[in-house]
């Protein structure tokens, strides 16, 4: 007896959604279930800074209308947290005690903002930017013309920072080793880039480190970051942008190899026969560098999702790890990055 295969996709970001569409194109009959922590159906995360240009209705950020999920036959499980994956019995356990059996699993759970160890206890006092909700909260809590203090300043953060500056806010950047993540920049390049940011109106604090965050309920601005020399920096919100940490806790019993992310072959196949991974959650084997590497950025992630889906359907394609990793400042001081190419 043959039955149509059930593909389960964990994550509804661009990798997950791209994969779902690819699966449907390749197999009109298969069953596709997409499990996501998000309460929204797929939207373009990289457009979140647009919130500060006035796009406050989440429907504006939708890539496809909700009805398209039904048309594509994608079963959506939103606000559903995966707590465990049983790689031997092939099912996904959700926090609400439901087991979803799969024939093939694609993990594109992405990552969550990384927070320097010494600041973890201040987590509750900071703003994130990982979801539409977080973006809207930020928009709500940041008064018009107010100041956002950024710790780190990875490429997602820089993108937001540029938008904030354009829309009349102030940004104070406290640099860390993760500034410009995931680009690796030399000291020279770094200085040039920081100079470009300062020229764009950003206040940049170099050679120091944030050691504490506090909030005051009365009097503005409300947030305060303490630096290691004891000085205090004031602003309205504090946001860590120190790169991503992969979300893999739920994969610990899945019978797959994990370092910081899920380890996959260039075909995006994990060490488990029926599990693939794509996007920020996986480290792909780089044969020249002899190491598992992360490949971040909108374009990469999307390519990975579609490629993994084709391989799940039986293809044997390889992810091209030789991709350009470039960040530049042009004559006008405008920063361009391969990370931002959509």
């Amino acid at each position, binding site marked *: 007896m043959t039955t149509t295969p059930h593909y389960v996709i964990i994550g509804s970001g661009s990798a997950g959604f791209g994969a779902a569409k690819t699966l449907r194109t390749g197999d009109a009959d298969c069953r596709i279930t997409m499990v996501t922590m998000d309460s929204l159906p797929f939207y373009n995360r990289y457009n979140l800074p647009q919130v500060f240009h006035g796009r406050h209705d989440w429907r504006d950020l939708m890539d496809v209308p*909700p009805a398209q999920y039904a048309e594509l036959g994608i079963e959506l*499980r939103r606000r559903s947290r995966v707590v465990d994956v049983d790689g031997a019995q092939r099912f996904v356990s959700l*926090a609400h005690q*439901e087991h979803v059996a799969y024939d093939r699993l694609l993990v594109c759970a992405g990552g969550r903002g990384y927070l320097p160890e010494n600041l973890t206890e201040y987590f509750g006092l900071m703003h994130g930017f990982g979801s539409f909700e977080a973006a809207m909260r930020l928009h709500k809590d940041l008064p018009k013309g107010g100041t956002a203090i950024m710790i780190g300043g990875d490429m997602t953060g820089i993108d937001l920072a540029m938008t904030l500056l354009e829309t009349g806010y102030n940004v104070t950047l406290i640099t860390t080793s993760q500034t410009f993540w995931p680009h690796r920049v030399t000291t020279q390049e770094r200085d040039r880039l920081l100079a470009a940011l300062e020229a764009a109106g950003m206040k940049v604090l170099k050679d120091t480190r944030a050691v504490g965050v506090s909030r005051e309920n009365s009097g503005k601005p409300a947030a305060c970051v303490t630096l290691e020399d004891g000085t205090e920096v004031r602003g309205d919100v504090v946001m860590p942008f120190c790169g991503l940490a992969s979300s893999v806790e739920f994969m610990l019993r899945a019978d797959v190899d994990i370092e910081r992310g899920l380890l996959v072959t260039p075909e995006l196949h994990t060490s488990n026969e029926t599990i693939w991974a794509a996007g920020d959650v996986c480290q792909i084997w780089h044969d020249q560098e002899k190491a598992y590497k992360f490949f971040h950025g909108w374009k990469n992630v999307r390519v990975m999702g579609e490629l993994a889906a084709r391989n799940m359907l039986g293809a044997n394609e390889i992810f091209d790890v030789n991709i350009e990793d470039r960040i530049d400042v042009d004559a006008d001081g405008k920063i361009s990055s391969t990370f931002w190419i959509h």
Partner: protein
Amino acid sequence: MIKSNDTDIQIAICGSAGDGTIASGDIMKRAAAAMGFNVIAFDVYPPEIRGFGKCISRIRISSKQTYSLKQESDVLVSLNDSHAIPHAAEVRDFGVVIYDDNLVARVAEGGHISAHIDAAQIPYGFSIRQISEQATNSSRSRNVVILGCLAGLFDLSAENFHDIIAKKFATKAQSVIDDNTKAFDAGLKAGRTVFRLDDIKVRAGKIKSNGAEAVMMTGNGAVVRGFLESEIESYFGYPITPATSIMERLAVEMPPRGGKFLQTEDEISAIAATIGAAYTGSRAATATSGPGLALMAEMIGLGVMAEVPSVVVVSQRGGPSTGLPTKTEQSDLNLAVFGGSGDAQRIVLAPTNVEGCYRCAGMAFDIAEIYQTPVILLIDLYLSNRYETVVPADAGTYTPKPRPQINLEGGENYKRFEMTKNHISPRALPGQPGLMYTATGLEHNEQGRPNDDAHMDMSIKRHEKLKGAVHYPGLNVSKRFGDKGKVDVGILGWGSTFGEILETMYQAQAEGISCSAMKVVMLSPLPLQSIEDFFDDCREVLIPELNYEGQFAGLVCGALGRPVTRLSRATGSPMVVREILDEVRRLSGREPAPVQAVGAMGARS
């Protein structure tokens, strides 16, 4: 009717019997009323007290006048996924589904409601059970936690909820109030931390009133209030869904007022005791449903024959027999109007909304006493249990009229059943000197003595005396709404269904259909003249009602001999606006007749 910047949301709370679903809905609607909203609410629950039956409480909260529940809810709260899953589809696009995302027992694949939420709906998962356990050490307060979640999500004031919780559990231990308050607050905290994605707007409620504070009542509650304001003196009851709460409320309210309350052992003795007390001049009533009415039919006949005033509230449910004991239906019209042995016409009033329940109950004793006959207040489960905001009448509206002053000479000449011009005879009360008579079920003469030969004359008297009731002052025995003069379609209705009829009529008018609607409140005797006028004005007359036989249509057709179109529904659920509207469109000729499975009674008669 409803503008976009008004509040008009409908919340459906669905759970298993025992989850506290109905209690939760109750707090919600009372809190919403306290906030100044118009509220219409209706609960559906199974006959089992606990176990596994489905309960669903639907509450429409609006800043404008509304007449019925909406077909689509804006919010669905699931306390039990297996019951709530079929209702996920009832939530409109960009509406909200709230559920427990941290269950205890394993569920089958697809057994959790999150698997059934459409992409256009917004899921809000909370750890409902854990929040309850954390707040109160018990999972029992899940139903209150979800109220907190709702209040948190939609930024409603906690104050009103706290207040209602304290009132609702006032008779319980303080710890019950404390625990429920804690559970609410915990849910509120959880709800407030969620970033909202839906487009549901709740603005301040504002009910315009005559200066009195609008209150939230069910149809049954309104009946009780009407009774109390008209100084009910005796009540005999027997529990039966959906009339029970009338008895329970009166059990609380009457003793302090010096009233006599008794739960009898069955309906037969309830009506017997009611008539017995009324014979002495006490304002007496009972309440029941169709099955109880059937038991009482014989005794009501006695009341007609003996010309003893009494008030019987009948809240209909699905029938016959136990039928659909917790579902609504308008199928006891025939029994109420005609039930009993022999020609035994009585007065039957069928209010169309909660406010109507209040006013009819307030006037029922007066009417019964004036016309010296049983008055049946015919409502149904949908009206009994549905909540609406009501503006109370001015004080004194229902103060009983002075009892018939009987300035009669005592002695031989007193005729209890005297033939008079208006066919109403002087009624003496036990205790009055010299006016002793016998009330009897035997046919009798003017003195009340057994006499077969008087039957024709007495039958004329007992029927003719009721005709005046059609003109009873202050009582809208019928009322026309909508377009004046000649119209294409007229919708004639009665009882609880009239809310849906009005909603339909306004929608039809908005579509440009010339349309009006008329409600008939007095079913016996019928206000024939105004019904006839309505027929004259309408090219087509449609009668929607909740029974299979089209009992009201039959009543009207029988009385007028005019054709009507019937829309008869016996689903156990309230009438669907959409279905009436389709029929109105068809009758108006504006759209080709949609193929509609309206059943045998759907055809034009």
